């Protein structure tokens, strides 16, 4: 067995792979947060809850209605996204223009509310969800075993991330979005329904979280508290990348997953703290994050 820095290659490769997969989830989730913060200046503390709702609804849709993974991949994010639009319309809209901190507090309350209700109904032990048969098994790469589902997660997450980045930064719709949030009065004057645009943007960011949730359902334990565990980490990722930077969120997400995986290989006790350590260091030298614009 070949060794690298005293660690077997297979172990290292395995941890790296796990790192990239976790990184794909971080990227999807931090992307949603970055969209919501970058365009709407809302600090969405309910993001973890939306991710959890994506995963939970996948399981529930299957158990209750027999809706399979492929359909859930579309239906669950749409449902959760619609729920996000409702929250934006009834709650977040009322504190628009206030200090950003109120959006943090409000969505924190929403997260407690959603998490608490679901915990009461489903308990905190994990729900089971088996992946579609197509993904059973994997390929042998000589030095390690690569499960098909993990490949699928990485590919799909990257596609979605790239698509979102492209849409916001390169298309006309994205230009409207950015303009609508910069100067809503002017855009209103051009006949664009800015409040609708804002609702839909929030819904879209939330959809990204729910989508990550669906992808997570077959591999992670699906519980009402799964979101609150990952939320704080994802916030650290967004801050490291630069709050509101779309590309930064994606790149940092994957990077942090890998760093976490490497730490787990070489110094396991620090693995859960390493991202926060990186965040502190980055903020000392680059206050607006790696890819953020100087404020």
């Amino acid at each position: 067995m070949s060794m690298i820095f005293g660690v077997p290659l297979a172990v290292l490769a395995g941890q790296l792979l796990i790192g990239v997969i976790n990184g794909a989830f971080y990227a999807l989730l931090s992307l949603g947060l970055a969209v919501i913060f970058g365009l709407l200046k809302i600090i969405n503390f309910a993001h973890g809850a939306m991710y959890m709702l994506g995963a939970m609804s996948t399981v529930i849709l299957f158990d209750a209605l027999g809706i399979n993974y492929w359909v859930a991949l579309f239906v669950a994010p749409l449902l959760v996204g619609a729920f996000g639009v409702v929250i934006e319309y009834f709650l977040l809209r009322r504190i628009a223009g206030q200090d950003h901190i109120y959006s943090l507090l409000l969505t924190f309350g929403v997260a407690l509310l959603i998490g608490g209700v679901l915990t009461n109904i489903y308990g905190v032990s994990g729900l089971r969800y088996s992946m579609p048969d197509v993904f059973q098994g994997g390929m042998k790469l000589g030095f390690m075993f690569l499960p098909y589902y993990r490949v699928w997660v990485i590919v799909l997450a990257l596609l979605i991330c790239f698509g979102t980045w492209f849409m916001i930064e390169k298309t006309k719709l994205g230009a409207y979005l950015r303009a609508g949030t910069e100067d809503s009065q002017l855009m209103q004057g051009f006949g664009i329904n800015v409040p609708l645009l804002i609702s839909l943007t929030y819904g879209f960011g939330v959809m990204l979280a729910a989508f990550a949730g669906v992808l997570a359902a077959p591999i992670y334990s699906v519980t009402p508290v799964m979101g609150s565990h990952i939320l704080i980490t994802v916030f650290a990722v967004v801050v490291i990348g630069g709050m509101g930077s779309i590309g930064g969120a994606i790149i940092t997400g994957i990077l942090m997953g890998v760093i976490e995986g490497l730490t787990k290989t070489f110094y396991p006790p620090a693995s859960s703290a390493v991202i926060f350590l990186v965040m502190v260091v980055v903020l000392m030298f680059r206050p607006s994050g790696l890819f953020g614009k100087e404020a």
Partner: protein
Amino acid sequence: MTQPVNQAEIQKAILEQQNADNRKKMILNGVLLLLLLAAPFAMYPVFLMKILCFALFAVAFNLLFGFTGLLSFGHAAFLATGSYTTGYLLSNYSGLTTELGIIAGTAVATALGLAFALLSIRRQGIYFAMVTLALSQLVFFFFVQSEFTGGEDGMHGIPRGKLFGLINLDDNYNMYYFVLAVFLGCYLLVQRIVSSPYGQILKAIKQNEPRAISLGYNVNRYKVLAFVISAALAGLAGSMKSVVFQLASLNDAHWHMSGEVILMTLVGGMGTLLGPVVGATFVVNIEYQLSQGPLRDWVDPILGGIFVLTVLAFRSGIVGEIQKFVKKNLG
């Protein structure tokens, strides 16, 4: 045109008004103090002490958020550091008197507060909140993995010991009056700080930081000091909490605790002196009452709902809304 007025008379009237206001305040404070002194005979002392500990925690947090405008999302770290340090010392050094254990816990939390402050103080607004959150997560992971904290199980059976080596704190009444004395001391300290010139500068920083800078104040130094005082008081709250309950647990270090103290402050009325105390009393009571009844499992969602309602509908909190009401209708 207006009547010619006598300057001296106006000043006299203002002074009289102020005296009357002060007298009203004194009476109100006196009544509150009597209530606090008599409370353990009407209610379970340990429950009252729980309220006092959280009230102190919220008062500490409010000094930073309500008066200086800095939202720390990592105050659980100081509460936990105080409670673990004191718990560890009192459990392992039987010669140590209780007040020394509490002072040590407070001191360690203060030092940690200084470290947090130096790392975070240059960041603004939401970045500040996020840095303090990240730092407190580091502290959380440290406590999870350290052996002396008992990991997930926490620390149990911390002895209450004797105050000054004389007063037996195993007696709930003795313990209550000790906690009350510490609480009142800290409350008066914060009141003094807030009304001092230093407190005025803090308020100025909150309202318009660039202006405070342009007036020549070294804003960061004032902020660091506010942060350190706040961390010290939060640590003290944690230290006392560990003595009162004779346990220290990871709950104290979890970021949900940082959220809870924000809720207490917000519900009570941030930026008011009494607000955090009222807020802590309210939240601890709600948690307790709910945990007794059929809504036992619904504490979290109900707190979440209160959070949402407060932010949406009455952002100035209970005390703030009452003040507004009084000003509008009786002033």
